[in-house]
């Protein structure tokens, strides 16, 4: 693999291998931007990887009050899982525990699709018979009396079977400081793309994994080929000048959105250059046999 160089940053001739997922989007509104964000943050907590969390979720974007159905500030949340059933369970559990409970919140469908996931249709039972159904046109809502007034929730939201999970960039730098700087800038650029979330803490994962382990109980374990402290001890993928690797994982509602986010991230890393940022960018794959979506870095360069 001969690297391509862009603004001094080496780009691997490699690709990110991604998988089909089930995805959905909801819009959470609240009396203020702060509380809309709070409900969304709580709901998308502990949702970094389907391996341990059941779902992957994050905040897609904020919506100004003038554009939301109830005229209050809103936050769009995306959620992904490997099956429709898991997504349904995760969505309703998280809604019930994190959004229903958040002061002043309301929740709306935010994905057009003929496939639907019940949200208010399930949460309504919390109303213990006092819930109120409201229809307008082809939209259906539930009003559930709660201690600060009412929780307003759309009956169903859209489900897409064409979501893509596992788009990624491996950002390699000389020191943790420069690598993190490059990763932060990439995350910032990728957050500007609509229809994707970066489910890991602040969008960044430092413990990338490989499939399998020497221990029977483990299905995934540390990606030793990218661990700088093991550079001399294992079959490493790292060059001598690399002292830190950070990964950004991307889930999107469409293949195009994931590609667009990777493109934005790459552009930000390349623009920063190798002095203060990353010296090399790679992507994680399993040889191309497991996932149907291949995002080649060379096709996404600025």
């Amino acid at each position, binding site marked *: 693999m001969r690297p391509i160089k862009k603004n001094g940053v080496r780009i691997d001739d490699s690709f990110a291998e991604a998988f089909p997922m089930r995805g959905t989007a909801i819009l959470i*509104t609240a009396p203020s931007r702060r509380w809309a964000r709070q409900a969304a943050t709580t709901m998308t907590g502990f949702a970094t990887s389907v391996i341990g969390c059941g779902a992957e979720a994050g905040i897609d974007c904020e919506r100004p009050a003038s554009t939301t*159905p*109830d*005229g*209050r500030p809103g936050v769009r949340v995306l959620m992904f899982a490997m099956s429709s059933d898991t997504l349904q369970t995760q969505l309703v559990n998280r809604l019930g525990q994190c959004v229903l409970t958040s002061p*002043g919140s*309301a929740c709306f469908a935010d994905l057009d699709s003929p496939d639907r996931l019940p949200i208010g249709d399930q949460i309504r039972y919390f109303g213990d018979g*006092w819930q*109120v*159904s*409201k*229809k*307008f*046109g082809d939209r259906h*809502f539930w*009003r559930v009396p709660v201690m600060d*007034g*009412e929780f*307003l929730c759309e009956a169903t939201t859209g489900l897409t079977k064409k979501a893509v999970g596992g788009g990624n960039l491996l950002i390699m730098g000389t020191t943790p400081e420069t690598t993190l700087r490059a990763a932060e800038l990439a995350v910032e650029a990728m957050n500007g793309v609509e229809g994707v979330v970066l489910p890991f803490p602040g969008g960044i994962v430092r413990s990338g994994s490989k499939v399998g382990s020497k221990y029977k109980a483990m299905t995934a374990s540390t990606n030793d080929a990218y661990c700088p402290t093991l550079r001399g001890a294992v079959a490493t993928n790292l060059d001598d000048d690399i002292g830190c690797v950070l990964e950004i994982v991307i889930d999107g509602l469409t293949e195009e959105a994931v590609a667009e986010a990777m493109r934005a991230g790459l552009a930000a890393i390349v623009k920063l250059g190798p002095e203060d940022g990353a010296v090399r960018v790679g992507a994680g794959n399993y040889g191309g046999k497991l996932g149907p979506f291949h995002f080649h870095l060379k096709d996404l360069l600025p």
Partner: protein
Amino acid sequence: MKPLVLTLREEPDQRLDLAPLVPHLLKGKSVKEIAEIELQTTREKVTAGDLFKIRAGSTESIRFEGGSLHLDNVGQGLKSGEIILEGDCGKSPGRGMSGGSLLVAGDCGPYAGSAMSGGRLEIGGDAGDFLGAPLEGELEGITGGLLIVRGNAGARAGDRLRRGTILIEGSAGDYPGSRMIAGTLIVLKECGLLPGYLMRRGTIVLANPPELAPTFADCGVHQLAFAGLFAGFLRDESRAAARLFGRPLARFAGDMAALGKGEIFFPA
């Protein structure tokens, strides 16, 4: 696309049943065939051709020029397409309609939008009694869609409303929202006696504080997200209705003489 235009020749001397003149029944018919459709309700035969001057056009869009309080059942059972009546009409315009759009520019008789289940019905003038109500023996009034009256409505507006939204921009007569099963009824001016009489569920929103029956229980003043949502939905149809939903509203639950899960809102 040019609409099919039917221009009223003169005021008819008997009540006429215009139910056959809807898009799905006229589809594929020539002007000659349409002119032969019989509309009489007495033994004296009256055809569409006798009554109207007919100008060919798409049957998906029908335009009546001129109206009369003798024209009953305009747009009855409308499923899709559009009907515009530039004038008054008689009883039951849009009765049982399930889709499409019907506009009556003038006044209409009783039972406008009776038992409609979808689509949009707008009365530009005043509506008679029993707006959207079921006929004798029927269990439900409106079960879906949007009904707007720009003028006043008579007594028992929204009787047995089950689903959908009725907006009356003028005043409503006595017993608005009587026996409501659910759905939403909005009145922007005065309303008569006992709003929500024996309502089970559903929402009545009144711009002016009504005199309520003692079987409605005060639940305090609230600003609810659902009101903001409906304000957004109604803004394009009626700015005054949208403004009403934006204000803090007093909520009264009732009718406790029936199921008692309904509510009446009015500005605090």
